[in-house]
């Protein structure tokens, strides 16, 4: 059974603006999937739907077996705890230390502070920022902030990582480092869905969906391309 399943999903905003139109796709557990396309193609909307930030206007969307249209508001947080989100806008809290930011997903689930701190330090070590635990996020570079976001996304051992343009505004080396990290988590069995318009990154993908004007126009897998 697919871990993420879109079946004829459309998302229409007020004013009849169609962000995505009749999208059907399936993502299996453990895959590293890229959503490709120009700005405004609907990549971010797809990720928002996957994260339960928005509910589809029509169609069926299942995340880890949960029908997102049927999902009760009170159950949504428990589903989100199985996801790791890396958002396009910097979503770090600038009035808290890097360590406190990374501890947040664990505090939310009621972990003991000592345990949360220990796990957050491990996550920061994995992204190479163990020495930055005590600093405030705004004093870090863009690449470092993105790595903190990654540490926060993986600290609670999610089943799926959703990353919206994780390499945007990063230089080539930082982008490669971020991608290396995401691939390492994918190699450890975590499903990763990454939106990007940077074609250089696609060599790592196990599946690529190409979006244009809110529709999937092609699906590429290593070695072949399927036009849709």
């Amino acid at each position, binding site marked *: 059974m697919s871990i993420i399943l879109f079946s004829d999903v459309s998302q229409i905003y007020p004013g009849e603006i169609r962000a995505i139109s009749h999208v059907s796709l399936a993502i299996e557990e453990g895959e590293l999937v890229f959503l490709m396309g120009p700005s405004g193609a609907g990549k971010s909307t797809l990720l928002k739907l996957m994260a339960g930030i928005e509910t589809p206007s029509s169609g069926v969307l299942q995340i880890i077996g949960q029908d997102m249209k049927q999902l009760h508001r*009170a159950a949504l947080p428990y589903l*989100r705890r199985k*996801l790791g*989100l890396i958002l396009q806008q910097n979503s770090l809290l600038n009035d808290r230390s890097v360590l406190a930011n990374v501890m947040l997903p664990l*505090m*939310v689930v009621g972990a003991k502070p000592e345990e949360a701190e220990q796990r957050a330090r491990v996550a920061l070590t994995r992204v190479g920022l163990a020495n930055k635990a005590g600093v405030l996020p705004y004093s870090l570079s863009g690449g470092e902030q993105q790595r903190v976001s990654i540490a926060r996304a993986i600290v609670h051992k999610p089943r799926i990582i959703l990353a919206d343009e994780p390499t945007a505004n990063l230089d080539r080396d930082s982008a490669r480092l971020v991608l290396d990290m995401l691939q390492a988590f994918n190699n450890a069995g975590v499903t990763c869905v990454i939106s990007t318009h940077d074609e250089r990154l696609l060599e790592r993908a196990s599946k690529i969906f190409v979006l244009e004007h809110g529709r999937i126009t092609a699906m590429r897998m290593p070695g072949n391309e399927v036009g849709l």
Partner: protein
Amino acid sequence: MKWLIAHWRAVFDASLKIKMAPLSFIFNTIVVALALALPMSGWIVLQDLQPLSNQVLVDPEISIYLSMDLPRDKAESLATDFKRLSNQHHVTASLTFIPRESALENLNKQADLTDVVSTLGANPLPDAYVVKLTGSTSEARVKQVQDLATALEKVEGVHTVQLDTLWLKRLAAVFTLATSLFWFVAATLCCVVVAVVFNTIRLQLLTHADEINVSRLLGATDAFIARPFYYTGAYLGLLAGLLSLALVLIGIQLLNQPVAALAQSYGTVFQLSWPNLGTVIFLLLAAVVLGFLGASLSVWRSLRRSL
């Protein structure tokens, strides 16, 4: 255990949020304290007046003056008739016979009347009965007491029955009005407290909007987000309650001397007393509940608006 950790964390977070904007919290606390001070002082004064008003209102007396020529044994035997009439009119009463000698003696004891009494020569006072009524002072009861007085007047050997029902009615009306007014003012000011706390927490929610949104995306439940704000509301209520209690106690201390002097000029002793521990706990609890209520309404409204 997780539940306890979550609450402990929320208490800590609430303190942190207050520490981030202490001045605004202090000013809000002062506003809430001032709003609480009036109903609190009203409550404490009412508690003080309760025994006094019970004595004045709930135990009115009917004085029955007997004829001057009525023999003593006949006068004493009238007690049975009076008790029977009280029972017939469903009025609970205690009956005290006051012989004319005792009445004169009592009159003599009042220092400023000694000279007047000594000029009278023979005892001018009749034997009398005092009927002390017990129970509430409702309109229906006033009617019962009036009927009883009329019936007592008709008993042979009774010269005059004295019952100032108009006075009784007026006093009952004033007491009812004062009580209603107190509850109205208290309810209004409690609404003010809830509104102030509501607004304080609304501003805090706006200040922490980013944190709330991020927490939501990371899987925070509504309860997790709301808890620190509930505690902030309760803190605000508690601190405002303590402050208003201090204001009321200072007020009592300042007013007590003039109040005692005023009471003394009416030949009575009255002082506003400090509230007992039970009243203090009740008032502080009420302040905490109001703070919690204001915070809950604010958080509920905010969470309904965001996903």
